[in-house]
């Protein structure tokens, strides 16, 4: 006998059949989520995952479920949640289209080594291979974009597989793991207990850096005259920012960060050279090119970082610290490899390292910093994206969680925001996924309900995922969605301007069928932007505002921060920014890091 409430609030007395229900595969999934400490899952139901959802529904008092509007959103939300909190993000989706919709999100997480567990339903095991309704070979499709994946066709395997999935996702170099569960397995009775430990002799991530290699590293540091530390997302994944801070303060070695590494070391400190690479600072790139010792820590020598490979850091002895042996010597020749967890390696290194004598080098870098700051030029008649980003930085001091899409706004955000701590900067680095910003902001907001979360998007990216405004509003996740609207796919347009004779092929988002076939560029003839983002916001019961003037920028941001906190609903701020504006400096594709181009002055 139990007393409960009806949906309309009236009390009803309900006779509950207290019959012992057998534990099924679907129960095992829920049990796994609870035992692995999962607090929230993102997803979307469907035929082949009905049983799991049935059990999730019953367990709603134990953890939160966020119903999204598109499965790609679920994957990015789980990803954003994982990046912000450090805990694995979880998605639950159905077979076929449900699972394939998560593919972009899984690939995004894979490229940036984000721990995620994706649970997908699969058609009953006896239908697999028969082109059944909503069947897709999901383990086949996701094999190259997951750290590991499983197809569960026997319920006996399910507890072990769930345990392994979480273990593999969060250990070593983290990554997404997908578990595809046939529908009959979800229904089948399971007697196997949920294991306490995993037994995976073929998977033994190496955390401890070899002391001899660390000693070699310390010796190289001591001898160096022009050292630079180049740190990446591995420092953040390893939660090693404190150890990095100690190391840098002890040795006073200048430190530059990759896009993924921003926040690993405070950009406000004098040793910070900010970001390096294609749109990095001149001083960071010059420092790398002139260095005699490059300490790559939790970074992977991506082509956006190195520029032309055989001209990269030509004078440097290269030390590479990484937990993944495949990262080492993949793109560049490494002189001192150190395989291990960044945190462990830095902890050991800090005990033995001695500061090198680099006053001359530091002075040279200070001079570069003085001479080549990041700049932008304000315009009289319109606002530019950079000043909006600077205003966000000024009002938040690096305390807000900032997410982005991909393109110009992402690079400007990376260049002009202050980064003071890890896990506050959430961006798709490796895959470069448009549409990542809004759902990852929602995921981060789920992890930190009281934190200010700002998504910075372009007008292109936001339209790939705008439906998730509903998810944010319904779940009272008051993210701030900043849209920098230049009515272009700005970064692609920039490349067209610089390398394709200013032929803006299919990058104008204001263009309609009424426009001339070969238009002469933006002007008064332009038809007006579709959609109206303010109305779009209002249609989702979010606050919407359009900003055109410089003096409106800060009040609009402050107003939105306040409103989001009070009303607990998302705010969409559409900034109408200059249409043609470029990200500088820039290393053109195939050029060396020091061959940067800049705006014509």
């Amino acid at each position, binding site marked *: 006998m139990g007393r409960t409430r009806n949906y309309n609030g009236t009390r009803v007395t309900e006779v509950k059949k207290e019959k012992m229900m057998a534990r099924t595969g679907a129960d095992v999934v829920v049990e796994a989520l609870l035992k692995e400490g999962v607090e929230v899952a993102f997803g979307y139901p469907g035929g082949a995952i009905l049983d799991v959802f049935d059990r999730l529904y019953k367990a709603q008092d134990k953890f939160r479920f966020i119903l999204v509007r598109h499965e790609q959103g679920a994957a990015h939300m789980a990803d954003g949640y994982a990046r912000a909190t450090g805990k694995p993000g979880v998605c639950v989706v159905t077979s076929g289209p449900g699972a394939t919709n998560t593919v972009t999100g899984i690939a995004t997480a894979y490229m940036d080594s984000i721990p995620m567990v994706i649970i997908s339903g699969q058609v009953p095991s006896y239908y697999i291979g028969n082109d059944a309704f909503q069947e897709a070979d999901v383990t086949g499709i996701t*094999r190259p974009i997951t*750290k590991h994946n499983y*197809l569960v066709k026997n319920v006996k395997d399910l507890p072990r597989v769930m345990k392994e999935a979480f273990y*593999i996702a969060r250990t070593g170099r983290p990554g997404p793991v997908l578990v595809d569960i046939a529908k009959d397995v979800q229904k089948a009775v399971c007697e196997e207990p949920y294991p306490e430990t995993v037994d995976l*002799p073929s998977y033994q991530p190496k955390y401890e850096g070899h002391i001899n290699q660390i000693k070699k590293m310390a010796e190289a540091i001591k001898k160096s005259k022009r050292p630079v530390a180049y740190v990446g997302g591995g420092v953040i994944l390893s939660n090693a920012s404190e150890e990095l801070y100690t190391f840098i303060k002890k040795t006073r070695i200048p430190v530059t960060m990759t896009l993924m590494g921003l926040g690993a070391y405070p950009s406000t400190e004098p040793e910070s050279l900010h970001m390096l690479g294609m749109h990095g600072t001149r001083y960071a790139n010059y420092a790398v090119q002139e260095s005699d010792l490059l300490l790559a820590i939790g970074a992977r020598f991506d082509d956006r970082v190195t520029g032309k490979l055989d001209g990269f850091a030509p004078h440097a002895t290269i030390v590479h610290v990484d937990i993944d042996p*495949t990262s080492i*010597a993949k793109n560049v020749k490494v002189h001192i490899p150190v395989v291990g967890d960044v945190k462990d390696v830095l902890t050991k290194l800090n005990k033995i390292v001695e500061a090198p004598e680099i006053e001359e080098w530091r002075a040279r870098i200070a001079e570069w910093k003085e001479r080549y700051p990041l700049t932008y030029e304000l315009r009289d008649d319109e606002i530019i994206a950079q000043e909006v980003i600077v205003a966000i930085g000024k009002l938040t001091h690096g305390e807000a969680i900032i997410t982005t899409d991909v393109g110009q706004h992402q690079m400007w955000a990376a260049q002009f925001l202050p980064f003071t701590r890890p896990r506050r900067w959430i961006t798709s680095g490796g895959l470069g996924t448009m549409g990542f910003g809004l759902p990852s902001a929602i995921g981060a907001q789920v992890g930190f309900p009281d934190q200010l979360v700002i998504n910075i998007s372009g007008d292109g990216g936001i339209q790939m995922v705008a439906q998730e405004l509903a998810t944010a509003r319904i779940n009272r996740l008051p993210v701030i969605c900043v849209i920098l609207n230049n009515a272009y796919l700005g970064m692609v347009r920039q490349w067209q301007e610089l390398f394709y004779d200013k032929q803006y092929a299919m990058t104008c988002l204001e263009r309609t069928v009424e426009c001339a076939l070969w238009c002469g560029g933006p002007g008064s003839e332009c038809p007006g932007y579709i959609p109206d983002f303010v109305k779009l916001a209002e249609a989702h019961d979010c606050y919407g505002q359009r900003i055109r003037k410089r003096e409106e920028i800060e009040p609009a941001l402050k107003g939105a921060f306040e409103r989001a906190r009070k009303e607990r609903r998302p705010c969409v701020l559409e900034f109408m920014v200059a249409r043609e504006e470029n990200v500088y400096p820039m290393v053109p594709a195939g050029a060396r890091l020091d061959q940067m181009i800049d705006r014509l002055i």
Partner: protein
Amino acid sequence: MKHTISVLVRNQFGVLARVAGLFSGRGYNIDSLSVAETQDPQFSRMTIVSHGDEAVLEQIVKQLNKLIDVVKVTDYHDHDKDCVMRELALIKVHTTPQTRGEIMQIVNIFRAKVVDISPKTMMIEVTGPEAKLEALIEMLRPFGIKEMVQSGRVALSRK
């Protein structure tokens, strides 16, 4: 440079696809691949022949090791004395009453076997290192090879 890579894997669903997908996805070459269960049915051994420069081969070994289902990877150079490498070929060669005797002699020299015979053809089975197979094939070519099939290489360490 040719390498023979011996990969001990957990006998799991999809493991061959994982290994083959790794090679195709990362643009590595597979010259041959053979796979079967070991003495312990929990494990299979794959022997992969690949070529590429040293850096590529190093990456192949590391990437294989990174796969969750891979237990052990051993990389043998082409003339490694510490391991035995074998391939098998079935060769169907055109015969006439005049050439049959000569072909038999060649087969004997190579310690190969005649496994099937018909008025116009003879099928020869030969095992051995790659060079031996190549030499036999060259000797048989003038008689007219009608069809031929070769296995991938298998390799086992002497140690």
